[in-house]
C-alpha cells in the first residue's frame, strides 16, 4: 500500500509495511498468536512491464516487488497520469527517472523509503533567474524513550507544506533549506513542536517531548493506563507522597480520609498486626470477603508490606466500569499500585531517613488497690462479712508493705512509656536510551511498648524490622520491543515476647490490682496457681521470632506492533511470587512462688515455691507456611487518534495459580477487554468486559460475562464554555453502569463436590484403649448449581475545576449484590446436617457518595497554599437474607445494615418508684426475666423495653438496636502551606456513624469481678447510687457479683465511637539552593512531624478506634518524628 499524506496532516500512524506479512491467529479460547515474517531482501533490478497503467499502479508494482515504500503528498504527484513502463533489468533510479521524466516531480531514496516531492518552483525559475543555492540538511528524530519517530513533519517555517518532508521509518529526514537562517519546524501529533535555526548544522539529532498538556495526564486504570481526559469510571488517584505519612508499618493505615470512597479503620497498633481494615465504598456482602482486590504491578499482592517509597502510582477503581474487567474478582473494588520505574537521565538518588518516638494514644485508666477494695466493701450486701478490713485498705493505700499489700497497675507494668520507630529509604533511578532502572531499598524498624525485664540476658521486647528491595528495569531489546523485569520483595523479622499481645492486655485488665505484686522486692515472682501474673507473662515467657519473606517477580515483554498498524501493542507478562513464613520460639519458665503469707522475724517473706523454673530457654519452631503464586497475562492494546476520534482498545487473557499448601492450587482464568472512544475531547464512551471463571463451581456455572458501560461529557470543552474557560477550567459529567462478580466465597472450595470431614468425633474401644479411630463424617454437601455472587453497580459523577485552583469531584453510587454465596440459616438444627448446605441467596444494596475537594494556589513568589479534603459515605441494606419467617421484625436483619448491633433496648434505669414496699416491681412494669443471678432487681438496674409486648422481658426481646461498628462515614481534610523554604502540612481524619456495644464480659462492670477478676475503670464514680439516683451516668447500679441484668448487650452500652483525629502535623524546611549546590545535592529537606497528636471523641475511656469492647488491646501510637530527605 502506498502511503498517502493528505495535505499537511502528517499522519504516519496508518503506516503499514506489506513487506512484513504478519498473520494473527487470535482465538478467544486460548490465545494463539503467531508471527510469520517474510524477510525482505533488496533487489536492485525489477522485472515487470506495464502498459497503459496509472502512475499509482506503477508505484504499487514497485512496492510489491521490492522493499521500497513511497511517501508523498497527494497534491504533489499526479497519480492518474497514464504511462507505460518496462522495468525489466532496471534499477530503482532508472525506473523512477523514466517514470517522472517531464514532470516536476523529484524523488529521494533513503534506505527503503522513497519520498516523492515536487521540484521547487525555483527549479522552474532557474531558467530565468539565477539558481538559488540551497543547503541540504538531514537528521534523525527520536521520541523520549529514544525510539526513532517516523512520519514526523519537518518543514521550513513560513513556507507551505510542500516545502517540507517527513521522516522515514528510521526517523531520518533529508531537506533542502534556503539558507542558514532558515528555521525548521519539527512537529508530530501529541508532541511539542520544535523550531530550530539551521545554522551551520547539517545533521540534526532531535528528541521530541511528549506534549503533556495536549495528551492530558495519564492515569493508571485497570490493566493499563488511560488519558485522564478519557476516564469515565470512578477512579481516584492518590499522590504517593501522601502515603508517606505517620510512623507505622502498614500502608493501609494511611488510607483513611485520604481517598474519597475508601473506608478504613485501624483496629490495633501492635507492631506487625497493625494493618487497617479497609473497604472501597463500604461493605456490600455478608459472605466471603469484603476487602478490595489489590494489584501491585498487575499482580494480586498484599498492600501492607510495600514501602511507600516503592510506589509510583496508587489508583482506586471504584465503579463497575473501572473494575468490570476483573470480573469475578472485582466486586469489592480494585486498588492498582504501580511501582517506580526509571526514566532517561543521569542517576537520581533520593535518601530519606526518619525517626519517631511513640507513645500510646490512650490506655484505659484503672483505680488503685485501696479504692478497689473500698468499693468492693461498699458493694458487699452482708456488711458483717466485708471482704477487706480497714487495716488492709489503709496499708494498701499508704504502701505500707507492697509485697504483702500489693497495689498494682498492671497496665503500667506491662507497658513501657515510649517506643521508637525508624524508616529509611534509598531510591536510585535513571536510564539511558535503551535501559531504564529504578532501585528502591528501604528499612523499617519499630519497637513495641511491651515491657521487658532488664535483668534477663536476652531481650523479649517487640522489635520489628522490615527490609524492602525492588529493582525495576526496562530494557529496549529492539527499537520497538521492551523487556521489563521487576524483582522485589521484603523480609520482615518480628521479635516479641512469647505470649499473645491481645491476651496480655486482657490479662492486665482481668488481674486485680490487689492480687499480688508484679514481683516481690526480693525479685521473686508471685502467682496463684492457674492464674496469671501479667507482668510475668510479658517479660518472663521467653521470646519468639517470626520471619516473613516474600519474593515478587515480574517479567514482561512488550512489542510495539506499529508495523502491523500504528498504535497496536502486544504484551506478555509472567510473574511468580513466593511467600514464606517461619518462626521459632525460646520459651522460658521462671520459678513462681505462692503468695507470701507474711514476714518472718527477720523480715523475710514467708513463701513457698509453686513451680520450679529453669534458667534455660526452651526451643521450638512454629509451623512454617509458604505460598507461591504464578500469573500469566497476554495483552493486546490499540491506541490511536484519527482526527477528532480517539480510540483505545484492549483485550487480555490471564490465568493465575495460587498455591498455599491446600489440597490444590487456587486457579483463576479469564479474558478482559476495553473499548474507549473519545470524540473531540468532549464525548466519551467506554465499554469494558470481563469474562472469567472460578474453579469453585461446576462446569457450566463457572464462567461469567461481566460487561460495563460508561459515558462522559466534557462540558468545559464545548465551544459555548470557551468564554468561561478561565472560571470553569474543567467540568466533566460521567456515569457508568455494569456488572461485577465475586467468587471469593469464604472458605468453601469446589462447592459442587461433597466433602468428607476426617478427624471429627473420635472414639476408642477396648478396655485399654486398643482401637482408636479418628472419626469420619460427611462434610459439606456439594450443590451442583452454585455460582458466584453478582454485583450491579451504577455511578454518577462530576468533576469541576474552578479558576485553575479548585477541583471538586463528586460521585454518587449504588450497588446491588445478589446471589450472595452463603450457608442456609433457616434449616432447623434438628435436621442433622453436619454443615448446613450452601446456596446463592441474599441481596444487599449499598449506596452512598464520595467527594473530594482540593485547592492549590500559588500566591506571589513565596507562597503556595493547598487544601485537600475527602468525604465518603456508604450505607448498606440487606434486602434479602435467609431469615426465619417466625422472626419478629425487630429481630430481622432484612432492611438493616450488615453487622447492625444487637441487644436489648434499654429504656432507663429503674427508680424507687418502680418498686412496691416489698421491693417487687409494681404492677404493669414488665417483669425482667433476663437472668438476674443475684438477688432481685433494684433501683439503678437497667430497665428494658418489652419489644414483643408479652409483658415480660426475655431473650426474645433482644433485637437489632441500630448502628454498626464499621463506620459509614470517613472523612479527612488538611492543608499545606509553602512559604519560601518552609512547608507546613496538617491533616485531620475522622470516622462518624460508628458505634460499639462496650463491655459484655461478666467483670466489665466495676466490682462484679468479686475481687478476683477485673480492674475498675477510673470513671467508676460516674454511676447510679442511692444517694445519686441519676439517669445520666455511665454505670448502672453496681453489685457485688455479676449482674446479668446490667451487663448484657443493650442500648445502654451502645456508644458513639466517632472521632476526629489529628493525623499529622508536619513542618518542613528545605535548605536554600546555595547551600545544597555546595554538596551537589538537588534538594535537602528536614521535617518534624507529629502523628495522631490528639483525638476528639465523645467516648473517653479508650481510643475509640480500637477493636475492643473493654479497651484492652495494643493501642495505636502517637508519635513525634524527625526526618531528612536528600536528593542528589
Amino acid at each position: 500500500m502506498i502511503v498517502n499524506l493528505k495535505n499537511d496532516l502528517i499522519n504516519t500512524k496508518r503506516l503499514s509495511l506489506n513487506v512484513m506479512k504478519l498473520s494473527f491467529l487470535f482465538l478467544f479460547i486460548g490465545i494463539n498468536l503467531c508471527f510469520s515474517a517474510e524477510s525482505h531482501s533488496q533487489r536492485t533490478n525489477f522485472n515487470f512491464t506495464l502498459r497503459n497503467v496509472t502512475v499509482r499502479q506503477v508505484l504499487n508494482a514497485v512496492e510489491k516487488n521490492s522493499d521500497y515504500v513511497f511517501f508523498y503528498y497527494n497534491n504533489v504527484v499526479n497519480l492518474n497520469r497514464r504511462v507505460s513502463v518496462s522495468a525489466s533489468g532496471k534499477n530503482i533510479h532508472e525506473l523512477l527517472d523514466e517514470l517522472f521524466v517531464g514532470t516536476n516531480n523529484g524523488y529521494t531514496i533513503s534506505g527503503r523509503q522513497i519520498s516523492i516531492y515536487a521540484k521547487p518552483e525555483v527549479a522552474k525559475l532557474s531558467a530565468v533567474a539565477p539558481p538559488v543555492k540551497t543547503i541540504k540538511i538531514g537528521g534523525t528524530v527520536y521520541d523520549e524513550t529514544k525510539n526513532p519517530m517516523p512520519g514526523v513533519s519537518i518543514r521550513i517555517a513560513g513556507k507551505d507544506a510542500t516545502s517540507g518532508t517527513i521522516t522515514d521509518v528510521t526517523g531520518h529526514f533529508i531537506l533542502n533549506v534556503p539558507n542558514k537562517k532558515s528555521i525548521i519546524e519539527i512537529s508530530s501529533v501529541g508532541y511539542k513542536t520544535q523550531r530550530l535555526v539551521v545554522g551551520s548544522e547539517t545533521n540534526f539529532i532531535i528528541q521530541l517531548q511528549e506534549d503533556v498538556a495536549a495528551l492530558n495526564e495519564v492515569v493508571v486504570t485497570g490493566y493499563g493506563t488511560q488519558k485522564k481526559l478519557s476516564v469515565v469510571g470512578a477512579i481516584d488517584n492518590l499522590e504517593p507522597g501522601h502515603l508517606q505519612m505517620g510512623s507505622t508499618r502498614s500502608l493501609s493505615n494511611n488510607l483513611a480520609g485520604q481517598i474519597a470512597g475508601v473506608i478504613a479503620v485501624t483496629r490495633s497498633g501492635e507492631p506487625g498486626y497493625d494493618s487497617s481494615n479497609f473497604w472501597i465504598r463500604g461493605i456490600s456482602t455478608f459472605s466471603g470477603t469484603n476487602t478490595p482486590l489489590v494489584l501491585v504491578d498487575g499482580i494480586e499482592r498484599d498492600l501492607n508490606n510495600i514501602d511507600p517509597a516503592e510506589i509510583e502510582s496508587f489508583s482506586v477503581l471504584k465503579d463497575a466500569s473501572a473494575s468490570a474487567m476483573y470480573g469475578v474478582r472485582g466486586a469489592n473494588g480494585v486498588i492498582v499500585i504501580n511501582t517506580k520505574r526509571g526514566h532517561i537521565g543521569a542517576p537520581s538518588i533520593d535518601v530519606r531517613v526518619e525517626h519517631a518516638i511513640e507513645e500510646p494514644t490512650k490506655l484505659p485508666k484503672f483505680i488503685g488497690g485501696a479504692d478497689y477494695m473500698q468499693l468492693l466493701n461498699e458493694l458487699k450486701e452482708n456488711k458483717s462479712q466485708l471482704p477487706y478490713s480497714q487495716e488492709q485498705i489503709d496499708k494498701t493505700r499508704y504502701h505500707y508493705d507492697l509485697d504483702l499489700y500489693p497495689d498494682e497497675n498492671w497496665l503500667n507494668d506491662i507497658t513501657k512509656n515510649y517506643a521508637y520507630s525508624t524508616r529509611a529509604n534509598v531510591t536510585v533511578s535513571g536510564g539511558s536510551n535503551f535501559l531504564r532502572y529504578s532501585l528502591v531499598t528501604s528499612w523499617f524498624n519499630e519497637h513495641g511498648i511491651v515491657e521487658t525485664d532488664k535483668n534477663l540476658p536476652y531481650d523479649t521486647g517487640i522489635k520489628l524490622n522490615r527490609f524492602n528491595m525492588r529493582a525495576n528495569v526496562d530494557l529496549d531489546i529492539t527499537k520497538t520491543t521492551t523487556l521489563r523485569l521487576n524483582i522485589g520483595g521484603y523480609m520482615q523479622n518480628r521479635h516479641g515476647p512469647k505470649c499473645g499481645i491481645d491476651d496480655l492486655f486482657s490479662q492486665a485488665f482481668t488481674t486485680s490490682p490487689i492480687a499480688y505484686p508484679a514481683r516481690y522486692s526480693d525479685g521473686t515472682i508471685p502467682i496463684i496457681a492457674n492464674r496469671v501474673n501479667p507482668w510475668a507473662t510479658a517479660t518472663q515467657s521467653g521470646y519468639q521470632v517470626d520471619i516473613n519473606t516474600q519474593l515478587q517477580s515480574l517479567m514482561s515483554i512488550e512489542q510495539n506492533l506499529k508495523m502491523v498498524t500504528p498504535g497496536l501493542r502486544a504484551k506478555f507478562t509472567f510473574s511468580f511470587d513466593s511467600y514464606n513464613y517461619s518462626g521459632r520460639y525460646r520459651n522460658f519458665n521462671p520459678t513462681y512462688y505462692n503468695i507470701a503469707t507474711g514476714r518472718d522475724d527477720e523480715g523475710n517473706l514467708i513463701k513457698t515455691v509453686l513451680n520450679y523454673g529453669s534458667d534455660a530457654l526452651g526451643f521450638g519452631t512454629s509451623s512454617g507456611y509458604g505460598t507461591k503464586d504464578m500469573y500469566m497475562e497476554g495483552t493486546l492494546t490499540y491506541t490511536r487518534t484519527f482526527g477528532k476520534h480517539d480510540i483505545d482498545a484492549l483485550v487480555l487473557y490471564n490465568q493465575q495459580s495460587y498455591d498455599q499448601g491446600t489440597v490444590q492450587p487456587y486457579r483463576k482464568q479469564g479474558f478482559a477487554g476495553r473499548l474507549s472512544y473519545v470524540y473531540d475531547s468532549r464525548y466519551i464512551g467506554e465499554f469494558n468486559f470481563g469474562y472469567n471463571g472460578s474453579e469453585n463451581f461446576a462446569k457450566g456455572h463457572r464462567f461469567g460475562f461481566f460487561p460495563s458501560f460508561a459515558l462522559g461529557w466534557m462540558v468545559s470543552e464545548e465551544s459555548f464554555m470557551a468564554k468561561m474557560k478561565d472560571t470553569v477550567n474543567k467540568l466533566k459529567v460521567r456515569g457508568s453502569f455494569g456488572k461485577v462478580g465475586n467468587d471469593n466465597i469464604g472458605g468453601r472450595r469446589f462447592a459442587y463436590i461433597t466433602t468428607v470431614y476426617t478427624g471429627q468425633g473420635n472414639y476408642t474401644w477396648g478396655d485399654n484403649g486398643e482401637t482408636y479411630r479418628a472419626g469420619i463424617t460427611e462434610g459439606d454437601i456439594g450443590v451442583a448449581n452454585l455460582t458466584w455472587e453478582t454485583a450491579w453497580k451504577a455511578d454518577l459523577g462530576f468533576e469541576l475545576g474552578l479558576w485553575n485552583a479548585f477541583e471538586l469531584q463528586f460521585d454518587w453510587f449504588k450497588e446491588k449484590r445478589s446471589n450472595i454465596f452463603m450457608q442456609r440459616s433457616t434449616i432447623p438444627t434438628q435436621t442433622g446436617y453436619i454443615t448446613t448446605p450452601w446456596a446463592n441467596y441474599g441481596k444487599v444494596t449499598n449506596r452512598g457518595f464520595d467527594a473530594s475537594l482540593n485547592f492549590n494556589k500559588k500566591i506571589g513568589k513565596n507562597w503556595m497554599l493547598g487544601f485537600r479534603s475527602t468525604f465518603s459515605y456508604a450505607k448498606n441494606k440487606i434486602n434479602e437474607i435467609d431469615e426465619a419467617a417466625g422472626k419478629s421484625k425487630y429481630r430481622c436483619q432484612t432492611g438493616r445494615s450488615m453487622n447492625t448491633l444487637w441487644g436489648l433496648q434499654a429504656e432507663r434505669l429503674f427508680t424507687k418508684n418502680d418498686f412496691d414496699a416489698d421491693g417487687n416491681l409494681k404492677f404493669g412494669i414488665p417483669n425482667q426475666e433476663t437472668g438476674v443471678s443475684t438477688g432481685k432487681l433494684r433501683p439503678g438496674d437497667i430497665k428494658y423495653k418489652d419489644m414483643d409486648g408479652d409483658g415480660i422481658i426475655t431473650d426474645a426481646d433482644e433485637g437489632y438496636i441500630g448502628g454498626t461498628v464499621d463506620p459509614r462515614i470517613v472523612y479527612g481534610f488538611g492543608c499545606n502551606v509553602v512559604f519560601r523554604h518552609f512547608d507546613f502540612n496538617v491533616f485531620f481524619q475522622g470516622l462518624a456513624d460508628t458505634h460499639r456495644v462496650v463491655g459484655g464480659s461478666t467483670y466489665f462492670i466495676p466490682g462484679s469481678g468479686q475481687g478476683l477478676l477485673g480492674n475498675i475503670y477510673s470513671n467508676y464514680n460516674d454511676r447510679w447510687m442511692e444517694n445519686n439516683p441519676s439517669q445520666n451516668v455511665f454505670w448502672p447500679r453496681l453489685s457485688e457479683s455479676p449482674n446479668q441484668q446490667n451487663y448484657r448487650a443493650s442500648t445502654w452500652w451502645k456508644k458513639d465511637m466517632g472521632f476526629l483525629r489529628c493525623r499529622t502535623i508536619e513542618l518542613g524546611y528545605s535548605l536554600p539552593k546555595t547551600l545544597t549546590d555546595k554538596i551537589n545535592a538537588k534538594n535537602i529537606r528536614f521535617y518534624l512531624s507529629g502523628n495522631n497528636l490528639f483525638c476528639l471523641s465523645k467516648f473517653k475511656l479508650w481510643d475509640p478506634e480500637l477493636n475492643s469492647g473493654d479497651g484492652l488491646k495494643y493501642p495505636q501510637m502517637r508519635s513525634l518524628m524527625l526526618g531528612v530527605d536528600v536528593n542528589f
Partner: protein
Amino acid sequence: MKTFKKINILFAVLFGACSFSSCDYLDKEPDTELNMDMVYSNKTYVEDALAYVYSGLPNPSEGWMNEIGWEIFGDDVTPSKRWQQWDWPNITKVFGSWTPNTGWSGDFWAGYPRKIRESYLFRQNAKALPSEDLPQSEVDNMKNECRFLGAYYWWNLAKTYGPIPFKPDYIAPSNFNLAELQIGRVPFDSIVDYCDREMLSTSKLLPATYTAPEKYGRVTSIMCLAERARMLLFAASPLCNGNEWYKNYVNKDGTHLFSASYDQNKWVKAADACKLLIDQAEAAGYKLFVEYNNDGTVDAFKSCEDIFFTKWTAGNKEILFPYTSTNSAYNNYQFYTNKTVTLEFGGGGGLGVYQGLVDAFFTKNGLPISDTNSGYVEDGFSAAVESRTTKWNEGTGTLGEITAKGTYNMYCNREPRFYTTVSYNGSWYALAQRPYDFFKNHKDNGYTHDAPQNGYLVRKKVYPYDNPKTGSWLSNRPLWLYRLGGAYLDYAEAENEAYDNTAARQETLKYVNKIRVRGGVRQYTTDIVDANDANYIHVDDNQEAVRKIVRMERRVELCCEGLRWDDIRRWKDAENLPEMTGDDHGMNFSGTNAAEFYVRTAYQTRVWKRAYYWFPIYIDEMEKNPNLVQSPYWN
C-alpha cells in the same frame, strides 16, 4: 530485522503458552481426595465413621460435671460459685441466670441430630468388605450398634428437652423442601415407644459381651437393655406419667405432648425391662464389684472406692455401659480431680458436696441420721479413734482406722460410703499425708474461690494419690455410663411402684439389700426385728415406706455419678429440696477455729424455677421452625 523475527517467534511461543490453558484449567485436579464412597470401601475408614457415631456418648466425668452439667444441676456436688468466671459457665444456671438463650456447651440440640444422621448414613451405606477382613456379620453388628446409638441419642434428646421434634429413620436430602424439615414436637410417649422397640430389637441382635479385648466398649445387648430400662423408668416416673403440670402443654395443632393421665402400666413395663436387664446381665457374668476382708467379710470401704479404679479386665464386672474413649485424660479424670485437690498440689480445691448429701449418708448402723436409733450426734468431738475391719487406710492414714480422735461428731460413726465420698475437715488427706485443714487461712482454705466453700471436698471417684502439681495420675481406670448397682436400684424402685404387694416389696428389698451388703450397712426386712439387730432393719410392708428407703439408698449409692439430676427431675422433687431452691449450707468457710467452723452456715443461695425440669430451646431455633413450641414454663 533479524531481531524482529526472533521477537516474533518469542511472542508466538509465549502466546502459545497461554493456550495451554484449555477449558479444563479450572477443573479440580483428578486427585484421590477422600469421598464417602471411598470411606465405605475401607475397613479403617468404616470404623472411623462408626467412631463418629460413638463419639456422641457423653463423657461421664468432665462432661457430666462441666459441659453438660448434670452433676452440678443436682444437689450432690457443689463447685465454687466464682469458678463461673473461668471455665465453668453452667454454674450460673443454678443461681437462676438461665434464659432460653443462655449458652449450653452440652448442646444436645445441635449435636445429637448429627450423630443420628450419621448413624443412619452408616446403616444405609456400610457394606461387607471381604477383601479387607470386614465380613457381613461384622457389618451387621456395626449397623446394629448404630441403630442402638441412634435410639439412645433420640432418648437423650427427649430426656433433656422433653417431647422433641422427632422424625426417626429420615435422612434429610440436599435438595430439601424447607417445610419438610420444620418438624414439630411429638408426644413424649411416642418417642419412648420408638426407642423402646429399637433398643429391645437391637438387644436381640448384639452379643452380651465381646471376647476380643479391642472390642470392649462396643454396644452390647446389655447396654441396649440397660438404657431401655432406665428410659422406661424415667417415662413411668411422676414427671412424665400423668403430670398435671403439663396437661395444657400442647403443640400448635393442639396435640398433647405429655399424656395427661397416669398409666400404671408404665411402671410394669419399667419393672419388666429392669428385670430383663438384670437377668441377662447376670447370665452373661455381670455382677457387683465387691472386695473382701481377709476374714471373708465384705470390705465396703475398699469396694466402694476401688470400683472406680478397677477396670473390666481387672475384674470389675459391674460395668454395664462402659465409656471407653481414652483420648482425653483431662476430660476423663484430670478436670474432676483437679477441682478437688487443694492449691498446695496444684488443684483448685473447691469442689465440695452439699450438706444435704453429708446428711443423707446413713450412720454406721444403716439408719438415717434423723432416726432416733441411728446414734447420730452432731455436735462435739470424738474421744477416741474409731476402727473397723477394712484394708482401707484413708481414714487416718492408718490401716483400719476410720476417724481420728477429736473428729467432729457429725462425721463419726457413719457408713463406709460416707467416708469414701466426702472429705471433711480432719479427714485424711492421703496426698499430703496429713488431715485436711479447712479452717480459714489454713493450709486447705486460702479463703479464696479455690477453697472448700462450705467446708467439704468431694472424695468419691478421686484417686487419692493423683497429684496435679507433679502430673502424677492414675490413668488406668474405668469410666462408665451405667453400672449394675444402678440397675438393681432401678429395678427396686420400678418393682415397688409397679405392684403394690408384699411379693413385689420383697423383690425390691432383695435388690436394695444387695447394694447395702456391699455398702457395709444392715439390710432391710419387712419382718419385725429388734432395733439393734445385727443384720436387719425393719421396714414397714407398704409401698410408701419402701419407696422412701429405695430413694434414700439411691441417693447415697449413686451420688456423684451424674444420676441424681435425673432422679430429682423424674420424681418432681427439685422444688421440695431446700438445697435446690434456696440457701445452701455447710461448715463455716470463714471459721478460723473449731468453734467458728463447725457451724451450719449458708454459703450460697440457689434459684429454682419449674421451667428447669426441661431444657429450653434457643430462640433462633424457635424462629426457624414455626411448628415448634418452647419447653414448658420457659415462656
